[in-house]
């Protein structure tokens, strides 16, 4: 039996020189240098300093030693916290992954009604910050006071509330209702949409039913995309924090990230030990990269070619059943938390209906002199991240997947490793970078420093999602363009960009959300003049200020501008990209034809 070509064999460089060697090497060197400096150097600075045995890095003189490495692993309960992190991650993924895959398949491969609107609703679910969602679920599932528990008890169905959010199942539930399911649907749906129906039709012609086709054809072809999503989730195993911290502490349940957070939040922050503990994620990455490469190189995953046909499965009345189930889930993921957020912003005090409603919190926020500045800064950061990041990440992903330039492995490693360190530690590394580099000090305290950070902060997810698409796209169209004499840039803009548009839109929205919600990575770099809405919300919901109602209003603004941004991005995407579904095949054929006829100008 003939073996499928490997990924390396697929790379266009083998048949078509992807770049002029000199230009290619020059570009690669520049990419490695710039990204290495902004992504890896802060991590390296942190790791070097983890050998600075001083208790307070900023106060005590530098003393080299292994103290932090020894003490970090002697922390009480460290092993248990590792186990707890693994438990929460496994339980969350066991539910969210199959659900995410199933929903992505339903949205992308079946004739379910309003599939694009439903997909957009998952984007909105992703835009709702984790903290308000967790608070909303506490209000609903607190064992004694939660609305659902109280309601069930009052109805006489139970003698006491059956649900307890302060438990392991409670944490897993809050994670699922937070970003657990939404992010997977967001990342997987475009990949499922990019699948040529010819393969599924062939399976059906061969006598396979819908289910068999899914398991024998669709899912194996989606393996790279699913692997990437899983790997990205694994990266978060020691970083996911807020929900576990809020819900775990009351019953003495601590996860690994809680340990890291506690060290950073100590009255005298122990960045040394925090870095040591955070660096364990590098071990996870050491596991991810070879496994990912092994899976990608085993076989061929091309699902988009010049003869692309995006056919959909008609499930009959099950289309409506699936629609109902997804819509019900979306109510839990979006309408519920959003309703609680909006309601809370009008309540005298969240959680106390007896105290009545008020506009005072809105007046407080809108009259805050920092608010307009913060709104403006957030818009600038969000828009910049949404425009520049997807383009930059797509170029990096292109280099990684479609070229044979030397240094690709280093670049891939760079992208993964920079995601290993939690935001607040990365923020410290960046602070040193800006302060310690002659010439860069100028950026410190200005919006430019924040812009650099927000552009780069979504790189691990962004680049890997893009890689997933490049793996799916066949070489024929690019080859046709090259044969027709189009240069690399023209090929990129005329062939790749339209094909990538749905994923670019996705990455744009994700980066907009990340930029608008950034806290840890920018908190040490922002000044009063560059305060963002997310930092304002953080301050308002902090222990000292504890104005959760006002923080809710800020969250509402963040969600509102993100939704508006997403709508704009979708509208632009619809203009630039290849038309979806029915019209996609002719459009792709046109692109290929144009390329072949040399009419790409």
């Amino acid at each position: 039996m003939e073996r499928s070509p490997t990924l390396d064999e697929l790379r266009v460089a083998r048949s078509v020189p992807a770049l002029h060697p000199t230009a290619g090497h020059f570009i690669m060197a520049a990419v490695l240098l710039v990204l290495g400096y902004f992504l890896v150097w802060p991590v390296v600075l942190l790791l070097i300093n983890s050998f600075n045995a001083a208790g307070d890095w900023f106060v005590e003189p530098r003393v080299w030693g292994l103290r932090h490495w020894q003490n970090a692993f002697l922390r009480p309960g460290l092993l248990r916290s590792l186990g707890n992190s693994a438990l929460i991650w496994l339980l969350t993924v066991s539910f969210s992954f199959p659900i995410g895959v199933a929903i992505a398949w339903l949205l992308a491969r079946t004739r379910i009604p309003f599939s694009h609107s439903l997909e957009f609703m998952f984007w909105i679910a992703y835009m709702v910050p984790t903290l308000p969602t967790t608070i909303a679920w506490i209000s609903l599932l607190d064992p004694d006071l939660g609305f659902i528990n109280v309601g069930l008890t009052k109805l006489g169905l139970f003698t006491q509330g059956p649900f307890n959010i302060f438990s392991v199942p409670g944490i897993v539930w809050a994670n699922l209702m937070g970003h657990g399911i939404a992010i997977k649907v967001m990342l997987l749906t475009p990949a499922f949409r990019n699948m040529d129906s010819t393969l599924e039709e062939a399976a059906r012609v061969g006598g396979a039913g819908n289910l068999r086709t899914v398991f024998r054809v669709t899912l194996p072809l989606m393996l790279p995309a699913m692997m990437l999503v899983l790997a990205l989730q694994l990266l978060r195993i020691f970083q996911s924090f807020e929900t576990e911290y809020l819900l775990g502490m009351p019953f003495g349940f601590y996860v690994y990230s809680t340990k890291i957070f506690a060290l950073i939040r100590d009255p005298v922050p122990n960045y040394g030990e925090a870095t040591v503990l955070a660096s364990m994620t590098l071990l996870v990455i050491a596991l991810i990269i070879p496994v990912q490469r092994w899976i990608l190189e085993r076989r061929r995953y091309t699902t988009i070619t010049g003869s692309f046909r995006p056919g959909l499965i008609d499930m009959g009345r099950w289309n409506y059943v699936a629609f109902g189930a997804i819509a019900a889930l979306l109510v839990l993921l979006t309408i519920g938390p959003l309703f609680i957020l909006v309601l809370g912003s009008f309540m005298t005090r969240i959680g106390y209906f007896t105290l009545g409603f008020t506009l005072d919190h809105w007046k407080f926020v809108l009259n805050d002199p920092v608010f307009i500045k913060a709104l403006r800064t957030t818009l600038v950061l969000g828009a910049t991240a949404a425009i520049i990041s997807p383009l930059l990440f797509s170029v990096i992903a292109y280099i990684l997947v479609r070229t044979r330039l030397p240094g690709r492995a280093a670049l891939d490693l760079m992208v993964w490793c920079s995601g290993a360190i939690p935001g607040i530690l990365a923020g410290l590394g960046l602070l040193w970078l800006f302060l310690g580099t002659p010439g860069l000090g100028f950026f410190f305290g200005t919006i430019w420093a924040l812009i650099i950070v927000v552009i780069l902060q979504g790189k691990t997810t962004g680049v890997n999602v893009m890689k997933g698409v490049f793996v799916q796209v066949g070489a024929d169209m690019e080859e046709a363009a090259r044969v027709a004499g189009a240069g690399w840039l023209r090929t990129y803009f005329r062939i790749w960009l339209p094909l990538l548009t749905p994923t670019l839109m996705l990455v744009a929205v994700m980066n907009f959300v990340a930029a608008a919600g950034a806290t840890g990575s920018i908190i040490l770099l922002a000044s009063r003049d560059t305060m963002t809405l997310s930092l304002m919300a953080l301050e308002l919901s902090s222990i000292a200020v504890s104005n959760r109602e006002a923080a809710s209003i800020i969250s509402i603004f963040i969600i509102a501008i993100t939704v508006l941004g997403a709508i704009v991005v979708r509208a632009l995407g619809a203009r630039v990209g290849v038309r979806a579904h029915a019209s996609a095949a002719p459009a792709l054929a046109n692109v290929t034809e144009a390329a072949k006829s040399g009419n790409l100008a």
Partner: protein
Amino acid sequence: MFGFLFLIFLAALFGDSFTLAGAAEKPAAFDEEWSKLIAAAKREGTVAVASGGAPSRQYRPVVEVFQKRFGITVEVSTGSATDTVNRVLAERKAGKYTMDIALISVREAQQRLLPSGSLIPFTPLLIHPEVLDKSVWYLNRHWYGDKNSNTIFIYHVSKEDKYEYWYNTDKIKEPETASLKKQTDFFDPRWKGKMLGQGMGDPSGLRQMIDSYFEPDRGPDWVKTYLLDAGLTFSDDRRILETWLVGGRFPLQPVVTGSEDLITLSKKGLPIKQAFLSKQVALIRAGGSGCCISAFANAPHPNAAKLFANWFLTKEAQTLTHTLIPNLDRSSLRNDVPVGEVPPDQRRVAGVEYGFPDADPKFGARQAEAQKWILKLWESRQK
């Protein structure tokens, strides 16, 4: 020899009078110096204040008055005080000096700003007669929170002359609280599983435990039992704690800080009540970013900083802190400012001399040791 000793005796006897007379005799000289200072400060145009927590917001209306009066922009950093200090220390380590004045807690200043050499003695900056006049300050002196008693100037303190605790009136009836007479009574098995407390991730929760460590009514053993064996449920989130207390899930909170919100909820008819236990020694404390002022070394706007520091401690500015900040949970150490928004339980009683551990030059080091011990205990809960 006797003559010299006699002179010293006279100086000691009338020292304050000489100072006052001196200050009173110099208004013309002061006016000139003050005008020059204002002019120099205006040329600098800005004063950068490192602060954090609630006070960084509370003081906004106060600094606005300064801005209008002198035409100098005041940039007050907001957010967490620890983040502010981290940022300032990192900047200074890289040779970048952006801050002029610190409105930061004694603990942050003592443990981090002072040892890093970031602060300069504050006393020499004081030139305003209204500030220099020690007779208007509590016990006729200036109060500092550092070992040299010259750098971290304490201007606001909270008063603690009794222990406060809260309970849910639906779950605990008033007669039941009669058994609570001393601090160890909270450890009676009947309360096990019914109490809640602030976690050590909440700076106020930690601060309470440090204070408790040194108090004769509590002490280290009490702190250990409270954190490990008394069956309390902890959270760093005060809003969750509040909901538990009001809903009765955990109906007793033996240690409380920042109870203004609970008072408001209680006044609005929710079933919670404040109660008190006696305290052997009445204390005043300098806690949080709203207590103290100090000056940064290598300040980029030294004249504006000096002007701000002097103005902030005048009768006018301290009065503004009492009148413009609602429900202020502390009060000025100046005796000549009206009580304004300061609640009755925070007003110092004239003639009473309170214990003031934060002003003890040796207290800082002992406090740091206690803090380490408490955090170690706290972490041992996670085994």
